[in-house]
């Protein structure tokens, strides 16, 4: 009912390839049949309209078909990618999921009921309207993930209009709104989604060459890594027409290098947030950081140097956090921007979030893990600019008793392993006797980060 517009495309493009996964093509006819099969299968399992279903998977053919089947049935889907599987219980609880569907690397599907009362006011709102929903997770300043509830009837509306049919790489994750945007863009235009074996420079370039990919949506840091690895030189990437990037501020050097390495490719900055979806944007020039953002249903304004956005496809609300909207309905992005007429330049996040290769790191979460370690009195985690990863996580630590720096660093790394994702583990650790609070008992992250910037600037001279 909600994906009628997609079903029309599937019929029309029956012989075209919808997904290439593990090098194998799956046609729209297959997807159409799979969708019908999964609608029946989910119904016979007892899954009803309005149920909250955690969907653990990646862009495997069945993951895509099951996701669409959940939408068709009017369920509330909660996608979860392998990268966040270790948080499954926490996220399931926040989402109050009453079903779990797990799709493994072989694309086998298992369906399990989960004990939960999924009676949240936002869910009730969707149920009253009979609309399907989707929940994405972002993170709060304390490190607790926020559940972002979207009304899919609204979010899907922008895919009704047909646009370009371009083969696109599934780089952004299955449980990321950018990944969802990639998928819907591809399916609504009857194009092909190419799933790489791994999200690493080599496999990504190989997939582009092998399957004649035309659009590569990435993060600036991944582009940087790719250029650095020179994987692009090993493959014929002449099929590429667009590289879209978002999720973090693009270093000017990466943009310049990218424009030089891919002369025929158009670089497009996208702007998006989990709460509002992905907006179309237009770079002023090929290698410019100034963009015009917007598109149908989107409006923006700058208040106190920060970007605010109003749009039709905004989320219904957070499951577990206060509303980030102004009283007149504008979403406060938290991004600091420069404005020049109709153009914007995004400078970065207002808060202390450290963006490592497009992945967000919340200092509080890392500090918490460090402070579990025996002998640690206090820890302040902050970011430092890094040419390879965008930023790296640094920690200034006060020890309760003296210990050689190298020995401590080794102990810290061993402790963090398994407790933190790799990108969250501090790469630079300094020991200090200083107190790490300012007069208002706030961590002096910003001072440390600024100090790091100065040090680097001097070092580079």
């Amino acid at each position, binding site marked *: 009912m909600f994906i009628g517009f997609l079903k029309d495309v599937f019929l029309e493009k029956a012989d075209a390839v919808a997904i290439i996964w593990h090098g194998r093509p799956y046609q729209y006819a297959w997807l159409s049949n799979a969708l019908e099969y999964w609608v029946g299968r989910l119904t016979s399992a007892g899954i009803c309209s309005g149920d909250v279903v955690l969907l653990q998977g990646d862009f495997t053919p069945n993951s895509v078909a099951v996701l669409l089947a959940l939408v068709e049935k009017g369920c509330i889907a909660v996608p979860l990618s392998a990268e966040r599987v270790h948080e499954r219980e926490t996220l399931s609880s926040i989402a109050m999921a009453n079903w779990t569907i797990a799709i493994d690397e072989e694309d086998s599907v298992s369906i399990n009921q989960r004990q939960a009362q999924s009676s949240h006011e936002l869910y009730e709102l969707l149920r009253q309207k009979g609309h399907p929903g989707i929940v994405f997770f972002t993170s709060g300043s304390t490190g607790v993930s926020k559940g972002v509830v979207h009304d899919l009837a609204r979010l899907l509306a922008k895919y009704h209009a047909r646009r370009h049919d371009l083969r696109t790489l599934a780089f952004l994750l299955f449980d990321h709104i950018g990944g969802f945007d990639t998928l819907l863009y591809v399916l609504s235009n009857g194009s092909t989604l190419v799933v790489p074996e791994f999200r690493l420079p080599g496999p990504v370039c190989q997939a582009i060459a092998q399957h004649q990919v035309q659009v590569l949506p990435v993060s600036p840091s991944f582009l940087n890594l790719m250029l650095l690895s020179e994987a692009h030189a090993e493959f014929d990437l002449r099929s590429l027409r667009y590289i879209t990037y978002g999720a973090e501020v693009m270093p000017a050097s990466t943009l310049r290098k990218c424009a030089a390495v891919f002369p025929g490719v158009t670089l497009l900055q996208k702007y998006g947030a989990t709460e509002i979806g992905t907006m179309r944007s237009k770079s002023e020039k090929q290698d410019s950081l100034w963009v015009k953002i917007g598109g149908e249903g989107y409006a923006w304004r700058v208040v106190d140097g920060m970007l605010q956005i109003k749009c039709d496809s905004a989320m219904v609300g957070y499951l577990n956090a206060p509303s980030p909207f102004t009283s007149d309905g504008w979403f406060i992005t938290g991004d600091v921007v420069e404005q020049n007429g109709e153009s914007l330049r995004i400078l970065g996040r207002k808060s202390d979030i450290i963006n490592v290769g497009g992945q967000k790191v919340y200092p509080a979460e890392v500090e918490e893990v460090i402070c579990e370690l025996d002998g640690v009195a206090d820890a302040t985690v902050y970011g430092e600019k890094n040419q390879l990863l965008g930023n790296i996580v640094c920690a200034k630590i006060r020890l309760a008793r003296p210990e050689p720096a190298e020995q401590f660093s080794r102990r810290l790394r061993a402790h963090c392993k398994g407790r933190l994702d790799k990108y969250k583990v501090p790469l*630079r650790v300094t020991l200090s006797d200083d107190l790490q609070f300012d007069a208002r008992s706030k961590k002096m992250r910003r001072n440390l980060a600024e100090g790091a910037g100065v040090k680097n600037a001097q070092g580079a001279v």
Partner: protein
Amino acid sequence: MLVNSAMRDRVIKVIYSALDEINSEKGSEGKLIESEETSLMGPASSLDSFELVGLVLSLESKIAEEFGVAITLADEKAMSQRSSPFRTVATMADYIMHVIEECNRG
């Protein structure tokens, strides 16, 4: 020339000691061999991007200890080279030599 080659040996030693540290935390697989040909990045390397950054930071502090100069290896200049100076132990050593030299020249 002699001075240069002795200096290069010292730089190589510093790199090997940084590799030793990384190896001590790696499992039996993926240990880095002490050789000038050893790849530090790209498909042939067993270092991931975080380990590479860790190595670069560790080299910066080891160089400061050994030679008494504060250098930055991963900067705009390194990134804008046509081929990355971090490819192998040998190219890394050459680049470190170059950066130290520039640093000493002021």
